[in-house]
């Protein structure tokens, strides 16, 4: 019977250990994924290489393609370690091939410039942001009407589809402006709500602060700390915005830490004193 128990316990311990290692096992890549990525890249680059491409570029691409065959072989042989190395090597080669294929005159482009050059691509991002604003807006029960902005999105999409780039650009500019205005209105509502919430949060601390002041007095703590606690209490109860409330609560937390330190120091000195007497 003891052997069965021992066997059972060993199995369970190994289960727990292997489960604990699950993350590191998952962190290893799926070999078939690696092959898919490189083949995808190879096909794309193949379509771009033409007679005008330099010999060096063509050679690089050839090397990469050759290594794909080796990668496939490694995968078939279940040699994942080698496959991973080959994958990274192929990716390095294809990155270099892509760079050589591209116009070498174009240096690093600042992203801000890209946005100005092609604002049509901004539409998806704007759409997602408006989606977020809609969710937040519902929470605040505001009277904001999103129908205008929704219509503008439809118009912009239609204009892009019909390749009316200039019109689409104007619509997107309108959309950005409108989104900015709606964002401002929602944030105003949020700010009011946050103040109410901050007040409730502060109330919790006020009660705690009263107790802290009383304890400090009972334990004959430094007058300076007690005075500071009283001032913070007054400031917190009269705070008129969330900024001020947060500032005062941080002050309370800091004072509370000081209070605890002083209290502990007092207890320690009492213990030392009583030892000396005895």
């Amino acid at each position: 019977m003891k052997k069965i128990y021992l066997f059972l316990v060993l199995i369970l311990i190994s289960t727990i250990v292997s489960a604990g290692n699950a993350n590191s096992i998952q962190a290893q890549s799926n070999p078939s994924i690696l092959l898919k990525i490189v083949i995808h890249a190879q096909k794309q680059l193949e379509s771009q290489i033409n007679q005008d491409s330099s010999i060096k570029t063509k050679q690089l691409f050839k090397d990469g393609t050759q290594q794909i065959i080796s990668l496939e072989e490694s995968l078939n042989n279940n040699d994942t370690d080698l496959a991973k190395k080959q994958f990274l090597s192929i990716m390095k080669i294809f990155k270099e091939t892509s760079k050589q294929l591209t116009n070498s005159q174009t240096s690093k482009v600042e992203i801000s410039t890209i946005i100005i050059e092609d604002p049509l691509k901004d539409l998806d991002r704007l759409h997602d942001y408006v989606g977020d604003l809609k969710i937040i807006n519902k929470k605040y029960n505001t009277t904001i009407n999103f129908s205008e902005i929704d219509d503008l999105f439809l118009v912009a999409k239609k204009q892009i589809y019909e390749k009316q780039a200039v019109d689409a650009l104007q619509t997107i500019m309108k959309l950005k402006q409108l989104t900015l205005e709606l964002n401002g209105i929602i944030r105003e509502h949020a700010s009011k709500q946050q103040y109410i919430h901050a007040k409730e949060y502060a109330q919790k601390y006020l009660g705690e602060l009263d107790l802290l002041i009383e304890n400090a007095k009972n334990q004959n703590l430094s007058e300076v700390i007690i005075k500071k606690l009283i001032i913070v209490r007054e400031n917190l109860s009269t705070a008129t915005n969330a900024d001020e409330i947060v500032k005062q609560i941080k002050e309370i937390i800091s004072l509370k830490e000081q209070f605890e330190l002083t209290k502990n120091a007092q207890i320690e000195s009492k213990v030392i004193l009583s030892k000396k007497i005895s």
Partner: protein
Amino acid sequence: MSPETMLITSEEPNQENGILFVRINDILKTMVKRYLIVTGLIIMSVIIPLQISFSSSRSLELIIYSDGSTHVSTKIDVNSLQPDFELDLFGSSINNFVAIGDTGFMLSEKIVKNKAIIYTLGSSEITTDYDIQDLISKEGRVWTFTFNSPINYTLLLPKNSVIVGMNQLPNNMEQVDEQTKLDLNAGLTEINYIFTTTINSTQKPIISNDSLFNYVNLIIILGISSTAIVVLVIILKRKQQKLTSNTQTQFNIENITEKQSVNTEIIYDFKPEMREDDKEIIKFISNNKGQAFESELRKKFLLPRTTMWRAVKRLERLGLIEIVKKDLQNLVKLKKDMVEEK
């Protein structure tokens, strides 16, 4: 008076009028039963993999747009006793920043360079969303995503983009609509991509595929767990204990609860900020015994993969659903606590 002190073992009789000293070994022998240890280990072996699979205190999702900006969406656990939280942003060119507390309300923030001070005011979990321009650079036609992540994360590449360079091995890859979604590890990642030009029609779509290792690992864990459970059941049956029946009853109750459809109105009341289209998704899942595959949802609502993926992620952020992998697919399940609230 000085009482007599004696060291005794469990075999020795208790001495009257003396202080009792007992060896730890004797306490263990007397109080801890072997079947308790075994049961405890079984529970641990079941719970630990579940925790690893489903619970994550922090999550990070990145979406690269075709204009070179990146949307960052992150869920963070914060100290509810502190009134604010300082969040390190992944750059300094931040747009459209939104922070939401666990009550669903928007939180105020101050952004200074690459830090955001968020007034959490008692929230224990916050979700932040923002767009950032600092992660992508472009050289000729090659776009480069460079990111040093503190945790594992998912990355959705833009439509029609092809990876041509990568310095890290992905954990997983899926094709969502025409976008590549990668699961990546913490650490520095550099991904080079270009936009497709002429070979769109000839490219074979990449089929969604889960990591082989995950399944092997899962099978091993399940195999070991089930063997252990079977052996334990045999032992327990021999001892005629009622432990198995109790556990079974508990599992049955959980299954019954899970399979019940939920009154969606309660969920709508609970989350009034939900979008109308999201409500329809919840209704469908609810009527489908509380769970549905993402592909089923796409077919039902005739939505593209990306749109449905975003909707599902949105519902997950609202805490209404959870996404689990099943048969290489995303299974969307209504959260258990929502069912219980009903």
